[in-house]
């Protein structure tokens, strides 16, 4: 097992205010070469989860507990120096906004060769050649000239691809992508998703991807985790999850997307309210206030986890498997 996340909790603490539980006991695995999706709306804890795996959350005001095992080593127990050593080499991140993730005052070349020399111990000249190869691989039109370009000189799509090149430079075994295609045009999004898929296939790296868009997940991720209020409410292999969504939240999310295949739906909104309306998981189902299938028990007892039939499900009253 490449990555094992066990009972991960992320709590944001602010003086004079009640604690905010962003991630509330999440466990999942990523095997080598696998693409795993974390899907959720704002407030679901997907970004906090990705950041916690990368250990990129600030120390002050954030409490992280549980275990994040990469090859059996708990990342949460490492010192900052040890972690810095691993970031980029063992695991690296593709951030939401390439504008802020790339260093604006350093040309692309040094940003890439820096990563190559540091993580793969290359000398200057071979690192330069490898950087050209990487830029060419991610589809930058003039890779040799691209080395001298500053991030602002690139188009949005090229910047996203350059960022992926930087992340992949150290040949990490785990790539964590937090909303890699948010705020991109659809044609650019298609380019980036295709690139990520190809990279994973070629390098054998695993990819952990967070998104709010089930459409993005459907073509990319093998296993899909649906997050709500900081917990995984449903997890299954993608064909199973999309074919027969059992959790009312997954079901509603799928219905809420205006689709291009098939006839237009007469109405989209099957879930009322927003991701911030939720109950504490301790003695209720967080989704109950918005759920159309809620029973009295849903606001009294936290739903147990059912892992039968190759699917994780956390619901008192799931959608029957035949209803579709």
């Amino acid at each position, binding site marked *: 097992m490449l990555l094992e996340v066990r009972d991960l909790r992320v709590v944001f603490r602010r003086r004079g205010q009640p604690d905010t539980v962003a991630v509330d006991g999440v466990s999942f695995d990523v095997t080598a070469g696998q693409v795993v999706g974390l899907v959720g709306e704002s407030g679901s804890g997907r970004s906090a989860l990705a950041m916690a795996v990368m250990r990129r959350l600030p120390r002050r005001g954030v409490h992280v507990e549980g275990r994040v095992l990469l090859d059996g080593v708990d990342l949460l127990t490492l010192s900052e120096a040890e972690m810095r050593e691993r970031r980029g080499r063992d695991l690296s991140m593709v951030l939401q906004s390439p504008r802020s993730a790339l260093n604006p005052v350093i040309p692309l070349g040094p940003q890439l060769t820096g990563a190559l020399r540091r993580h793969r111990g290359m000398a200057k000249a071979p690192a330069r050649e490898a950087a050209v190869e990487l830029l060419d691989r991610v589809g930058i039109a003039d890779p040799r000239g691209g080395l001298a370009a500053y991030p602002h000189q690139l188009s949005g799509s090229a910047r996203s691809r350059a960022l992926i090149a930087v992340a992949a430079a150290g040949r990490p075994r785990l790539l964590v992508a937090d909303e890699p295609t948010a705020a991109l045009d659809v*044609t650019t*999004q*298609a380019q980036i998703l295709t690139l990520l898929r190809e990279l994973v296939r070629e390098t054998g790296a695993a990819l952990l991807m967070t998104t709010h868009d089930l459409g993005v997940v459907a*073509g990319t991720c093998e296993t899909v985790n649906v997050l709500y209020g900081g917990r995984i409410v449903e997890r299954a292999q993608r064909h199973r999850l999309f074919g027969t969504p059992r959790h009312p939240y997954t079901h509603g999310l799928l219905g809420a997307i205006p689709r291009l*295949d098939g006839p237009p739906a007469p109405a*989209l*909104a099957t879930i009322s309210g927003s991701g911030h309306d939720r109950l504490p998981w301790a003695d209720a189902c967080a989704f109950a206030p918005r759920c159309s299938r809620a029973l009295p028990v849903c606001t009294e007892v936290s739903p147990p986890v059912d892992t039968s039939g190759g699917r994780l499900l956390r619901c008192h009253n799931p959608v029957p498997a035949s209803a579709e």
Partner: protein
Amino acid sequence: MTPQPDAALLDVRDLVVPVVGRRRRRRARTPALNGVSLQVYRGETYGVVGESGSGAADLARAITTPATRTAGQVLLDGVDVGDLDAPQRRRRIRMLRPGHDHATVAGLLVDEMRSAGLPEPDEGELRELVAVVELSAGVLRRSTQELTDGERRRVDVARALCTGPDLLVADDPVAGLDVTVAAQLLDLLGRVKVGRGLTCLLVARDLGVVRHLSDRVAVFYRGRIVEESPARALYRGPLHPYTRALLSAVPVPDPEVEDRRERILLTGDPPLAADPAGGCAFQPRCPWRRPERCADEQPLLRTVGVAGHLVACHYSEEIGR
């Protein structure tokens, strides 16, 4: 809704809008909108699709703010919007976009109506307005900061409707919203426009959203319309290569469909493409490009197939197969 040729509420003719801001220096030669003509008929919803750099957002702005254009006409009921006085324009054409003002909901609505030259509304009218967007009357006394995302967007709809407009211009109304909240807003917009018989111009980047609400759709590329069609025909059989690429790029939340689909991946992206000298603007990225006409001859919009399906491509008949 079947369009009636005599009832064009909005008539845009050869509109030219220059690029504003930082982009000006780099691309001074290419305007944001480069001779766009379109008609929006009474009671219909006209969808405009375009990625960044297409000019779709500039169209929305040019309609509500006539000062941005350098050539062409925007006629509302036969009168140029530039000739309407400001309050009247604000009353008849409303822009739906996220507002960030910090005030009570009632205060916002009263302000909007006053700036459109309408008499101050009484409590009953305000209650009616928030009821239309399916909010309770209690929301009137609350500040917009206290509202949830979904409620705030409903208030935006109420602000757009409060003057009883002829035309509603919605510029990417669901941008940045969660899927479930966006779905609620789209459903609401659908109900409101049918209930009030509103004429809408809907600009969006998301083809799914446009399809959900629109009767007719125009696809923009680099400041020009490349395809215009009744929504049904466009989604069933797109004719322009760019429309085909755009449709094929939209992810579908169904792995069975995703695995079978054939993607038309475009390389490069619009803003950096070289300025074509007289040829087709999409030609540098087009997978179906041919050496003969594409590079030198600007394709004009022409009817292909069903009536009302216009496309600006020399070879759309051959590509369609």
